């Protein structure tokens, strides 16, 4: 009490219990926060798989650009081989369209225009259309993984049959 000379690191009973209580409370709060965050992130999604089966390569003649509206990808068969672009405009997410007479991909929403290689010609889109990973499965079908981007025009970004 008043008589004792308090050392700087000495705590009395009240302070001890205060620290104990507040400490436990913060641990509990941290745990609750962690578990709440885990709860909020769904472990299972009821959404279609990002991997799309585009069928046999013969469906796509040379120098063709084919839009699949359901999966929002372009399958393009160029001289170097098959590759896939995302059809979702990089500006605000509208579905782009292939204009063969102009030889470009155009977005109807704000007028962004892209070359068949995905490179942006004009418009408010900030980035070119991304290239998506494409490969052949064991049945000889073309598969595209919409969740994986690959470098544009790189050797491994094409499928050669």
């Amino acid at each position, binding site marked *: 009490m008043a008589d004792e000379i*308090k*050392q*700087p*690191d*000495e705590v009395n009973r009240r302070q001890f219990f205060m620290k104990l209580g507040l400490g436990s409370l913060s641990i509990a709060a941290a745990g609750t926060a962690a*578990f*709440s965050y*885990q*709860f*909020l*992130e*769904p*472990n*299972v999604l009821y959404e279609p798989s990002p991997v799309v089966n585009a069928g046999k390569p013969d469906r796509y003649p040379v120098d063709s650009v084919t839009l699949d509206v359901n999966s929002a990808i372009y399958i393009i068969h160029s001289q170097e081989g098959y590759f896939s672009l995302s059809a979702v405009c990089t500006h605000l997410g509208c579905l782009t369209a292939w204009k063969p007479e102009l030889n470009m991909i155009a977005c109807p929403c704000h007028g962004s225009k892209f070359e068949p290689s995905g490179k942006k010609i004009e418009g408010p889109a900030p980035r070119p259309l991304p290239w998506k990973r494409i490969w052949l499965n064991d049945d000889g079908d073309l598969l595209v993984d919409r969740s994986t981007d690959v470098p544009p025009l790189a050797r491994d970004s094409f499928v050669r049959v």
Partner: protein
Amino acid sequence: MAKSGTTKTMDQYFNDLRGTRVWRSIFRSGAGSSTLKRALAIQQNVFLHLFSTKVRVRMLSFSATWYLGTLTLGTFLLLVATGIPLMLYYHPSAPQAYADTKDLQFVVSSGLFLRNLHRWSAHAMVFLVFAHMFKVFYRGAYRTPREFNWVIGVILLLITLLLSYTGYLLPWDQLAYWAITVGSNIASAVPLFGDKIHFLLLGGNAVNANALLRFYVLHCMILPLTAMFFIAIHFWRIRKDGGLYAHSSEPAVVRANASDFPTSRKEREKSGTPSSGAKEGQ
């Protein structure tokens, strides 16, 4: 408080924080252990100012009430706190509801725990509400001027039972479906209006998608809001009736000596008449 040279302790940092303008603009009355500060902590708080700043010592007695009313409110809060997260993963459509319940148990992180806690808190709440009612009755705490608060209590009992009943259907399992089928068929036993009540309750002639949706809206929105409404009135009337009922046969002191509570002695020393404090307790 230990002061060692220029280094500050956590306490001191915290106290400095409390002195800042930003802090004081949010927590206006400030912290402290004086009678005034403690009274302000109640009176200035939007959630707590339903309490009076002082209560009679007798009201603290555990043996008087077993704190059943407080515990019932506690279960209600637990149910709201667990119910809302459960709503995030639940679609009130048949048979998706059953799949969602299974999901909550097996897939969702902490889903099983939340569902369990919700279920057992619900059973606890029904039990506690009955216990609270019987305890209030046997104490005679329903007597004048508290009659209508007793009636509000009975209404709250009915709301609790309805909440439990509507929630029972939501998992859409065999237990739920048939319990509600039987229960709603009892409703059609009401003379004259029975069938109409049955039809309106279910939104149809059988327990199907409409019934599930109606019970969901009742359970998650209508009944909780009604409950909160009546709970507020229930608490307000306790306050207006002078706080918890304290029969003269119940102990006037909770601890060995009422003067163990420092503020009450201060009160007695300061003012000669404790009656000023009594009025403040209204």
